[in-house]
């Protein structure tokens, strides 16, 4: 008898979990909003064009996949060594190697068009005009569900983040892109700026549908045997669990500054890390470096989220967003 009863309880519990709403909408005002069936995305630069990991894991389970950064022209990237491990992280200087926007449209988009999972294309300009040009090229292409603007790659422009540092320039690029596409536009911010809130506000005012942050932080490792930088490029972008607290802090700041959804990126390695981002104000998260270590990281988060939502007595993952903000009574309570 007790066995039957507990089985019933188990069923009820699982039923409650399956009724939890994990969906998130990005680009409410875009021509075609981006509906994520869950808030977990693959981060740009760590998931190739999605096809590579499709051989190892079920990529259709993701809320969305963000492609690696693409540029107008194909790019060979930097010389090696391109990566080096650091404590709880890694530095990379890939140099935006990619096949160029034309081949992405011709060879990758038709594959993505067959997929359930939406693919967001991350675009990186070598000039300010490149962004609008690629936005126009990608507009209406079947298989492309959104754009993420990389205005902050630390590896390409001489001297670092020329565009992302300047709120006015970030706004101008966003505005330009907005004018050339009906796709939802996510603007990805760099942590290496004096006033990240100002950049976020400028992007929002210029029509961004969402803000994602953070890109990698500029760092360097020196090989003490050779007395030379360990990366051929010299500097690289730091990613991995080491940067998670910085990202949580900046998501916490920016999400209180803008009204559009914020996407948390940086060092997500576990379901708890993802929940932390949401409590800090992120509507969705991206998993990056941890996929290299554990390809199932994102899927484990997706599987675990319903339980986290239910344990707080909520029906939707959206209820978690920003719970840690100071104005919220849930945080003020002891």
């Amino acid at each position, binding site marked *: 008898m007790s066995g039957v009863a507990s089985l019933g309880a188990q069923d009820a519990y699982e039923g409650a979990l399956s009724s939890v709403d994990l969906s998130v909408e990005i680009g409410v005002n875009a021509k075609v909003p981006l509906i994520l069936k869950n808030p977990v995305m693959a981060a740009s630069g760590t998931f190739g064009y999605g096809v590579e990991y499709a051989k190892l894991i079920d990529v259709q389970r993701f809320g969305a996949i963000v492609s*690696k950064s693409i540029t107008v022209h194909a790019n060979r990237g930097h010389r090696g060594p391109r990566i080096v491990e650091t404590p709880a992280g890694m530095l990379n200087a890939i140099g935006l190697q990619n096949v160029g926007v034309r081949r992405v449209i011709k060879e990758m988009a038709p594959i993505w068009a067959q997929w359930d999972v939406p693919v967001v294309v991350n675009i990186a300009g070598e000039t300010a005009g490149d962004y609008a040009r690629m936005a126009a090229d990608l507009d209406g292409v079947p298989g492309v569900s959104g754009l993420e603007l990389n205005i902050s790659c630390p590896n390409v422009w001489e001297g670092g983040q020329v565009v992302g540092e300047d709120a006015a320039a970030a706004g101008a690029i966003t505005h330009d892109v907005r004018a050339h596409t009906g796709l939802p536009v996510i603007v990805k911010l760099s942590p290496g700026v004096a006033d990240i809130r100002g950049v976020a506000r400028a992007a929002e005012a210029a029509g961004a549908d969402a803000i994602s942050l953070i890109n990698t932080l500029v760092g360097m490792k020196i090989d003490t045997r050779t007395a030379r930088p360990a990366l051929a490029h010299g500097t690289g972008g730091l990613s991995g669990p080491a940067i998670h607290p910085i990202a949580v802090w900046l998501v916490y700041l920016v999400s209180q500054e803008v009204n559009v959804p914020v996407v948390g990126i940086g060092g997500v390695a576990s379901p708890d890390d993802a929940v932390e981002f949401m409590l800090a104000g992120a509507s969705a998260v991206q998993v990056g470096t941890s996929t290299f270590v554990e390809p199932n990281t994102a899927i484990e988060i997706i599987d675990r989220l319903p339980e986290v939502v239910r344990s707080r007595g909520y029906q939707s993952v959206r209820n978690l967003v920003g719970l840690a903000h100071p104005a919220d009574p849930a945080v003020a309570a002891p």
Partner: protein
Amino acid sequence: MSRILAMVVGNKEIMPATHVVRLRVGPIGGQASPGQFLHIRCGDGHDPLLRRPMSVYRTEGDVIEILVRTMGKGSAWLNDRRIGDELDCLGPQGRGFRLDPMARHLLFVGGGHGVAPLIGLAEQALAKGSSVTLAVGASTASLVFPAGLLPAQVEYLVATDDGSAGYRGMVTDLVEDWLGWADAIYGYGQTPTVEALADKMQRRVPRKPGQVALEERMACSTGACLSCMVEMRRGQLRACVDGPVFDIYQVAWDQRTA
């Protein structure tokens, strides 16, 4: 490529700081070839963070052996494993060496612990009735792979930087007289060794079949991250999925950073 939970079934130090770790990997063991690698997670924490690529040394039924020299945190962790421990592996990854079916005389040239897959390959070649010469270079005698662990039929040549064993100098100078004898040449090791081998072959025996395995730093091993790019005469290839074994004449050696 697949996910394997491999059980450690042996761990033996065969020379200072170098272990043969035996892993029971299941049926996939029979499909792995020397030059392919397992991408192994070293611990379940964040440091070391990245998986370590470990070349297949030998295969035996459902067992893959790897040769691990303690170089840093990851390899030290691997060499500390005990029988019964389980290792989280992706693999076998990449494309391994392909034995040339027409070749009767095979020359294998390895530097440092890069000798591992060449030994497994040499055993396969011997089983097919080929003659095998294996030449290895090391900095000093204590780092030379023990001759006693090689099949007796292998002709074994040794070069050391300090002259403490065998020829004093580079292994690629030592093998000059064998380049003509060989029908096919296979190389593995650190960049300077394989570069010197490629250079020597191109000058002395151009067009002779040759393959080399390249050691590149990698993060994902699935072809996604583009950390391990190799400049080729035509375009670029990824060491993790397109290699790590490449045709010696297809690599753009002049574009490599030493």
